[in-house]
C-alpha cells in the first residue's frame, strides 16, 4: 500500500508508518516529486511521529527524499521527532539527518511557507519586472 500524501494549501503532508518498506519509500518519493513538478505544492512535510525507530537506513531515506525535493526547487521539512529518536540519532553519530526539521506538523507547514517566502516565492515563478 502506498503511503498517502495529503495536500494542505501548497504544502504536501505525509506521515510515515512504523513498518515502512523500500517499495513504499520509492513510491512516496515519486508521488511527492510528481506533485511538486505539477506545480501543486512548494514543499513536503514528513511526519515521523508513528515511526518506532529511525535507523541509518531510514535516516538515509529521509535525507535523500529531502535532497530530491530540494533539487527540484521545493522544500522538505521533517516533523514529529520524538526525544528518544533524537537522542539515539545523536549517540549513533553526527550528520545522520540532512534536512530542515520542525517540532510538529504545524511547525513544518509554517517552515515551508516561511522558507518559500524568504526566497521570494516559488522557484518557477517568472519575476515581474
Amino acid at each position, binding site marked *: 500500500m502506498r503511503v498517502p500524501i495529503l495536500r494542505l494549501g501548497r504544502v504536501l503532508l505525509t506521515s510515515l508508518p512504523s*513498518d515502512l518498506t523500500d517499495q513504499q519509500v520509492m513510491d512516496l518519493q515519486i508521488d511527492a516529486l510528481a506533485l511538486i513538478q505539477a506545480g501543486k505544492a512548494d514543499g513536503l512535510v514528513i511526519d515521523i511521529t508513528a515511526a518506532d*525507530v*529511525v*535507523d541509518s*537506513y531510514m*535516516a538515509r531515506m529521509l535525507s535523500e527524499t529531502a535532497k530530491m525535493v530540494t533539487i527540484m526547487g521545493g522544500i522538505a521539512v521533517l516533523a514529529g521527532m520524538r526525544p528518544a529518536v533524537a*537522542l539515539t540519532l545523536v549517540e*549513533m*553519530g553526527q550528520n*545522520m539527518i540532512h534536512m530542515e526539521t520542525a517540532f510538529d506538523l504545524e511547525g513544518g507547514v509554517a517552515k515551508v511557507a516561511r522558507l518559500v517566502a524568504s526566497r521570494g516565492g516559488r522557484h518557477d515563478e517568472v519575476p515581474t519586472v
Partner: protein
Amino acid sequence: MKPEPDRLDVRVTSEMDVVEARQKARLLALRHGFGTVRAHGIATAVSELGMNLVLHTARGGLIHLTAQGEAGAAVVEVVAEDEGPGIPDIALAMQDGYSTRGGLGCGLPGTRRLMDEFAITSEVGRGTRIVCAMRRP
C-alpha cells in the same frame, strides 16, 4: 537465586521481520526495567543489524535476544548471525562513511557507539556474527 534468562529468536529475511524483531527487543528491554530511551536504543541497534541481514545476505539470518540479570543489573544482549557472504575487512566496515551498498555507512559504527558492548566475527564465504549488549544503568 538468579532468574532464568528471558530469550527469544526472530528469523529475519524481510523488512517486516526487522519490524517484528525491533518491537520485541524494545518490549524485552522495557520488561527488564530499561528506560524508554535505552529501550529505544536497543530497538534501533536491532533494526540496524536486522536491515543488514535483509540487505547483505541472500537468505537472511537470525536475531537472538536475551535479557538476564537481577534487579540491580539487567543486561540485554543482541546477537545477529547469518551464513551470508561475510565481511572481508572488518576494520573498514567499522569505519564511518564506508558502505558497500550506498548506505550512510554509519550502521555498524553507530550501533557500536549505541551499545555498551560490541563484537564482530566474520569469515568470508561462511557468515557473520555480531554480539552486542546494553546494561541497565
